[in-house]
């Protein structure tokens, strides 16, 4: 049974106290967490080294302005962290980070990974219109009751993996009735215990509220089905229909934590055509589609990322023409992963299926 640290403060206050303790005691040199950019509900990830700045951080703010995995990869790509950093990330971000580490895009050295049972995040557009703050009471109410918070992103409402894998510490949010009075931090690893030792608070043994977790999981499963029904994608996608609106900005690739190529195929000139390509199309069909070719682009991207896609939904959030990319990712990624019996980000030791040769797999295809 893991150890649990209880602090008599709200979850966010308690977490901030823990981070303050880590920074002040010199156990970590930096804290990676969300911090507000304004009073209207804007927030960004920040690397914080100073106690005053930490006071302003809001590590549990329900917004995902970037996928933290992408940021942590950026911090540790050239070389591993040389000094300890505590990073507060969502479960899907942690999963994406695990995938990036498997793909040699960063290092976990000197990172203390703190996550939470996640209630989900609001759409990025809400940070622009500035009405997240007024929604916070209903958000925390839903988290307490282990319900789906109203108006959170569809990717979050449909997410079943809201309990973190591989976190050194987990802040219990979902189903925690006292989330505004008490902060419970589960210390999942020796590393988690070592870093927490010395902080004043009650230390006990305990399990995350599994009944509430299961309850929310089945609610979200049902919601996922509803959302897929609404989009008419339960049986698959009509790619022409779904991607028709795409303007080729490729924001979905740029912000995707798993799309890590340093030069994208679509920047390499690989998708460009000689004039003869268009001339052939003209002769054959009487017309030709001019780049960007959204279907080709989107399919290639799916082909590249679907094994490691964690369904974080950021692609849909940044799409200027509202393509439900979260559903495409979840549905396609889900079935690809299922066919390999692979869950991205579950375990660092679990080999990427395409790098592992198994003589007996996909016999049907081989035949």
């Amino acid at each position, binding site marked *: 049974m893991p150890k649990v640290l209880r602090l008599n403060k709200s979850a966010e206050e308690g977490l901030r106290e823990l981070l303050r303790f880590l920074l002040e005691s010199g156990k970590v040199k930096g804290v990676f967490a969300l911090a507000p950019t304004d009073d209207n509900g804007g927030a960004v990830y920040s690397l914080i080294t100073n106690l005053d*700045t930490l006071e302003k951080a809001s590590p549990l703010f329900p917004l995902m302005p970037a996928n933290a995995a992408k940021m942590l990869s950026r911090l540790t790509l050239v070389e591993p962290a040389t000094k300890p*950093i505590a990073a507060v990330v969502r479960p899907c971000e942690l999963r994406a980070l695990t995938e990036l580490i498997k793909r040699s895009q960063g290092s976990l050295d000197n990172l203390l990974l703190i996550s939470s049972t996640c209630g989900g995040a609001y759409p990025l557009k809400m940070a622009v219109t500035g009405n997240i703050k007024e929604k916070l009471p209903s958000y925390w109410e839903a988290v307490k009751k282990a319900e789906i918070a109203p108006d959170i992103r569809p990717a979050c409402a449909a997410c079943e993996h809201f309990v973190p894998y591989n976190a050194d510490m987990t802040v219990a949010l979902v189903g925690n009735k006292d989330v505004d009075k008490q902060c419970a931090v589960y210390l999942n690893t020796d590393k988690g215990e070592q870093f927490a030792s010395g902080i004043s608070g009650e230390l006990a043994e305990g399990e995350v509220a599994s009944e509430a977790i299961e309850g929310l999981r089945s609610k979200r499963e049902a919601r996922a089905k509803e959302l897929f029904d609404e989009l008419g994608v339960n049986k698959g996608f009509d790619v022409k229909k779904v991607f028709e609106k795409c303007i080729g900005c490729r924001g979905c690739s*740029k912000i995707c934590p798993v799309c890590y190529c340093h030069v994208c195929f679509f920047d390499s000139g690989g998708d460009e055509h000689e*004039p003869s390509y268009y001339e052939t199309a003209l002769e054959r069909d009487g*017309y030709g589609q*001019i780049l960007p070719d959204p279907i080709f682009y989107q399919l290639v991207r799916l082909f590249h990322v679907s094994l490691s896609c964690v369904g974080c939904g950021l692609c849909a959030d940044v799409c200027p023409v509202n393509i439900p990319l979260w559903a495409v990712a979840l549905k396609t990624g889900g079935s690809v992963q299922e066919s390999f019996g692979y869950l991205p980000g579950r375990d660092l030791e679990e080999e990427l299926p395409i790098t592992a040769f198994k003589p007996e797999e996909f016999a049907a295809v081989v035949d």
Partner: protein
Amino acid sequence: MVSPIKGAVFTAEGSTREIILAFIKQALGKDCFDAVLIPAKAPEGDSFSYLLIQNETILKDAHPICPIMPVQGAKALHSLTGRGKGKKRIAALLRPCEVRATVELFKLGQVDLENISLISIDCPGALPLADWVEDPQKAETVFLEVLKGEASESLRPVCQICDKFSTTGAEDLHIGTLGAKSGSIFLIPRSPKGEGILEKVGLPAKEDISGWEQTVNSLTEKRKGERKKFLEEFKSKATGLDNLLDTFSKCINCHNCMRVCPICYCRQCFFDSANMKFTCEDYLDRAETMGGLRLPPETLLFHIGRMLHMSLSCVSCGACEDACPTSVPVAQVFSLVGNKNQEEFDYVPGKSLDEPPPLRVYEEEEFEEVEQSCAGTSAKQEAQNA
């Protein structure tokens, strides 16, 4: 005294769109060109994209005056001719800002115009992409109002203050719709290529079109005034370090603005390159200096870098702002900075194919005040060092 512009009047049945398409059909029939590059409605009807059309029956889906700008036309021409010219002669129907961006890309060696005829149209402006995405049917209704000269406040901010909505002079042929009698459009040749097209369709440019010219001129003057006023007001809100940081505070570094910009043509952006990857130690140092480091870092630097790279060629087309997922007024900032930089060099991007980009030209006499202040600074430095 410049002799007045002459044009031809083309008449046909139907809406302006149908008249333009009738002209294109006729020109295709008379072998003026082999195919036309033109926005067309996508099969599901909720979007537009550039199609290269040879077949007359497909032409009926074309929308030369499109309510939105999902892809900048210069970018489409770059896709088509970036690898060199083809065998087919192609007419590209573009908005004036798309023609201008094409001209800039030509100067930068990114398009081949040898077999291309550039045809521009009096542009009513475009609606914000987000409004279209939200409710295409409603947007279509609003756009019908726009075509009647109303509801201009529903256009994209940069379209509302556009003073280059008509012929730029760099195209081969211009289609005038302003002040045209119902059932007609003006065809104004702007190059020997354009004259050739009109000759082939049997419509020599002999008509007096001063009515159109006057309408264009008076709207241009009005828009110039509005542009100046708008940019002055915007300047007070967006310049200075604090305002600039505030304006870009919602930027999430998705680079959508760069990706859709017709001028930003680098294959690998500097900001995606190894030059911008630093060690963790470096990030921690920066965080310590400032108390905290925002991640992704260098979001404002990206915009300033992009500005330095392309603002002399920026045609204020607004594609960047349309593509921004967090509603940063990118196009307004770039219009402001672009205008200022272009004025300094007395350069109008896209005005002429022959005018070299200012940074390629050495002029002994320019920017003396900058030179002097630099000389002053170095003299001061020398004195201090001495």
